[in-house]
């Protein structure tokens, strides 16, 4: 594979990519339930996501009095769609669905859509707890978004491009995670945040009876749960492409390497977040701005300096 030569898939590409996303997301959910089962001393557990899906497909949909049905539907369905659109610019080995010159910015834009969707899902239900949940997510977003943006900038600086394919290609020889570990960690934290996983579950936590999911049932709830895992999977995929060398690896074909790395990272994230307690919604704000932001800025500075030196020498 020559650097930068990412091959764009023909029109069936989106189907394949979305199928892969669904499978990866399902594997994440299964791992989560297997871990949960093992923790409480039961066997199995891998079947639980399927049981949950069956349950929700069977369950009647539910709406509340004077709910804003349009906004609620947009919010509920949007999470999964946003994840799908993220994945579209993700190079899987040498293949990509859409070889956008500004793929990185596209990812960021789709991430911002999640703000809108979670809030709309909360607002549209006309119920206190979802409402509070939706606003909590915006608060989280205000805290995580800037560090995330700068974490995205670091690989872009090193590669001198916003094209995902170029960023992957620039890591030949040395993965970015080696010399930008802070950006990697911040990025992973942001991935947990935009996919509503612990410790950033305040928008749908138990203290507000499930928050944005509180009044949802049936396929609506299914879509939100799917959206969470899809976003987490997409985030893991981007972490691999941006920091872990994409599909590079010996022997096996690069798409397999890519999927393997993504799945392993996803499972690690799933296992990790089970061990972290949740943050109270207002707890993230000051640390993110006063600690997280300067730290990631320093990382970008270091990356920029190293890149310049690398070029000139």
């Amino acid at each position: 594979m020559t650097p930068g030569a990412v091959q764009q898939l023909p029109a069936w590409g989106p189907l394949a990519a979305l199928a892969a996303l669904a499978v990866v997301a399902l594997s994440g959910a299964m791992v989560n339930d297997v871990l949960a089962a093992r923790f409480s001393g039961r066997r199995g557990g891998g079947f639980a996501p399927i049981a949950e899906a069956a349950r929700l497909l069977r369950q009647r949909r539910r709406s509340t009095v004077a709910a804003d049905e349009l906004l609620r539907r947009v919010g509920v369905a949007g999470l999964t769609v946003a994840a799908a659109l993220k994945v579209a610019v993700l190079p899987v080995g040498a293949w990509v669905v859409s070889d956008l010159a500004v793929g990185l910015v596209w990812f960021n834009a789709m991430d911002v859509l999640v703000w809108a969707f979670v809030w709309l899902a909360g607002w549209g239900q006309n119920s206190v707890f979802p409402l509070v949940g939706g606003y909590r997510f915006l608060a989280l977003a205000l805290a995580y978004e800037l560090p995330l943006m700068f974490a995205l900038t670091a690989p872009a600086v090193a590669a001198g491009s916003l094209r995902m394919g170029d960023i992957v290609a620039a890591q030949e020889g040395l993965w970015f995670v080696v010399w930008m570990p802070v950006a990697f960690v911040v990025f992973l934290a942001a991935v947990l945040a935009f996919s509503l996983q612990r410790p950033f579950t305040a928008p749908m936590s138990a203290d507000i009876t499930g928050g944005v999911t509180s009044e949802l049932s049936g396929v609506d709830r299914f879509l939100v749960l799917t959206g969470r895992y899809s976003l987490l999977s997409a985030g893991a995929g981007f972490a691999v492409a941006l920091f872990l060398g994409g599909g590079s690896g010996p022997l096996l074909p690069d798409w397999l390497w890519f999927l393997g790395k993504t799945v392993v990272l996803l499972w690690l994230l799933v296992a990790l977040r089970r061990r972290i307690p949740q943050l109270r919604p207002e707890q993230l704000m000051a640390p993110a701005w006063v600690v997280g932001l300067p730290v990631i800025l320093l990382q970008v500075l270091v990356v920029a300096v190293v890149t310049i030196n690398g070029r000139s020498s």
Partner: protein
Amino acid sequence: MPEAILFVVLAVIAVAAGVAVFRTDSMARASYALAVSFVAVGLMLLQFRLEYIGVITVLMMVMEMAVMAIFMIMFMGMNPALMPMDMVHSKKLSAGSAIGLFLLLTAGILLADWPESRGPAGGDLTASLGEAIMEPKMLVMLVISPVLFATLVSALVLANPRGRYSTYPLVPVEDADDDDGQGKGQDHSGDSAGHAAHSAHGMDHGAGNSDGHGQHHDGGGHQ
């Protein structure tokens, strides 16, 4: 031809969503209708091969509308979703200025002496944008930096309810007689709110100090 059709469709969406902003009763819908309008504009920019500008327009506008919705809802004079309302005030003036501005801009577009296109745009437009910002248009950056700083500071000075030295009041400041006489039970808690405020004040200090992370602010108060 398909491009032209797409352009028209996007343009219609942008305008229709813009109209919807003023037709809806719900502040949330109004904000996000505006966001849809901007997204359509962003996609139109993509049609001009302005990839970065197009995508960043979508990014920024959705983000900003999400934030704007917060304020639209907060500062509405009444219930922001469930009451019929009219978003248009001082209709004549606004219609006049809107039409005037539209004519002005259109005239500008039609009459300006645009430079001739020198062949298709080459290379990476985002990179040329970056170069432009960093070199010939550096002044823009240098001006924007203090402007943003000033924006940040002045916005906070205006908006932040508390300064550095005031602690967080745990309860609303209340004058008891202003309370609604019929607030069943509430007037009781209203009366006691005053007492609570005093005792709570001390508690707040305690809480702030033991909170090891962040919020220096209490410490500042003691200096």
